[in-house]
């Protein structure tokens, strides 16, 4: 494996991108989960599907698109979708969450149309749906790096504001912290992370990498900083173990990464259960 990593450029691309998204997806995912927006990540990734399918179809029909990396198109539509969700949320003031299924269905619907219109990109499409070890290009890696820089800078500079917005939205308004700019940027950043991650974990599983490590971390973390740290650690473990096993077993990395993170979550839940049972036992002994 180590030899192969030095020999094959595609493996380097896959692993480097994997390690980067293993960092940024759970990092942003923490804010998404505590704000109860997990479904938005799902909706946006399906919008990216529409973009990817559209781009793949057009690349068969129009020369210009055959030279264009479908990832750009996917990111573009995801960003568009994020802005649309924000817009729809204000239309349905009392049913804000309705914006999510509307956008999600639009994404799948348009995606389905393009997939059935075109012939012969099933292998490509599989890679986009469930991730791929071999399909990550240098250009893709470059895109992932740029997005990672944007995400990290955003969270670094707006940490205070994002924290208060997540913890207590009402208070953030009253104290004059809330701003449309941060809310909108947050949505766009989410779309960017989805765009960056889809090459490795696949469109259908992007949101899992943003939520499952966080779900596991929240079981053990007391502080917000701690939750952030654990989320990233678990995310990285899932990506590395997932990518290595995907390489050896020759299966889609999206599957192995997500299953690994679920296993980690179960292990943490099990450990917590054992620990609390032991504490009860210890207490009983003390009483006796």
């Amino acid at each position, binding site marked *: 494996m180590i030899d192969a990593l030095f020999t094959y450029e595609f493996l380097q691309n896959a692993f480097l991108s994997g390690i980067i998204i293993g960092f940024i997806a759970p990092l942003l995912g923490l804010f998404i989960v505590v704000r109860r927006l997990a479904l938005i990540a799902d909706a946006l990734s399906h919008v990216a599907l529409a973009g990817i399918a559209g781009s793949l179809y057009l690349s068969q029909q129009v020369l210009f698109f055959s030279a264009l990396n479908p990832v750009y198109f996917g990111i573009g539509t995801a960003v568009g979708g994020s802005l649309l969700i924000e817009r729809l949320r204000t239309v349905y003031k009392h049913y804000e969450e309705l914006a999510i299924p509307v956008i999600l269905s639009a994404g799948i619907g348009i995606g389905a149309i393009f997939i059935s219109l075109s012939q012969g990109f099933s292998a490509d499409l599989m890679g986009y749906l469930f991730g791929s070890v071999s399909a990550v290009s240098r250009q893709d890696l470059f895109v992932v790096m740029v997005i990672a820089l944007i995400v990290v800078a955003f969270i670094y500079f707006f940490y205070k*504001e994002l924290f208060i917005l997540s913890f207590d939205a009402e208070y953030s308004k009253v*104290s004059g912290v809330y701003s449309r700019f941060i809310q909108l940027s947050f949505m766009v950043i989410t779309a960017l992370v989805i765009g960056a991650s889809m090459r490795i974990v696949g469109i259908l599983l992007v949101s899992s990498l943003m939520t499952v490590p966080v779900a596991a971390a929240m079981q053990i973390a007391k502080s917000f900083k701690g939750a952030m740290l654990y989320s990233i650690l678990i995310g990285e473990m899932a990506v590395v173990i997932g990518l290595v096993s995907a390489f050896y077993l020759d299966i889609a990395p999206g599957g192995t990464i997500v299953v690994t993170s679920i296993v980690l979550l179960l292990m943490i839940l099990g450990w917590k259960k054992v620990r609390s049972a032991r504490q009860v036992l210890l207490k009983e002994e003390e009483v006796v």
Partner: protein
Amino acid sequence: MKKAIIELTDVNFRYEQRIVLEHINFTVKDGEFWALIGPNGSGKSTLINIILGLLKPEQGSVKLFGEDLEHFHHRELIGYVSQKSNSFNSGFPATVLEVVRSGLTRKKGLFKRFTKKDREQAMKALEIVQMDDFAEQNIGELSGGQQQRVFIARALAGEPKLLVMDEPTVGIDQQNVASFYSMLNRLNGEHGIAILLVTHEIDLVTELATHVACLNRSMHFHGVQSDYQKIDHQSISKWYGHPVRRLHQDEGEVAE
């Protein structure tokens, strides 16, 4: 002469066709402790939301710290504590200190990161509410009364001149309510922070506050506590729209 920090002049507000506030004149000065009382649906929360800048009055002028609401950009001068029940989800992974420090967000301004000094400031606020021993605990592990103290510390962290509280004792057991109110007394007396406390409990608070305002769509009474105590039951019942028994030191009963 004490400075006026809230000044409402002839404020009207309506939700669609329903008139909620009518010709409200209301002034709070530096260092005063106001209890804003009134029955459910009397417009108390609306009035608070107007003062906090969340709602715009249909008519009338609102001045905060001498400035018109539209030109008022010093939100950090106002600390806000809401009803415990609707302010956050209890599974949130954050320590008490992280929550209190977040009260400094506005004061710090954009692009500035928290420093050691901010941590000390947050600890100081926790000491005031006597919760400094809990700084590293998860916020969800505390009792309702303790959480409410933490939220007061969050409001105090930015060293506000005015503390606005909307029914802060809802969901807190009676025993803790008494110590909660004595803490408010201390904040007002020792630290000189003006307090505007909204409540439907007219018993304990009106004894505690220096001033009382009775709201039911319009302002029925608005003055010092000793004057309020002189008002007879019938008048208060009339304002409330239903019979109200008022707590007197000698009776010890609770208002309905």
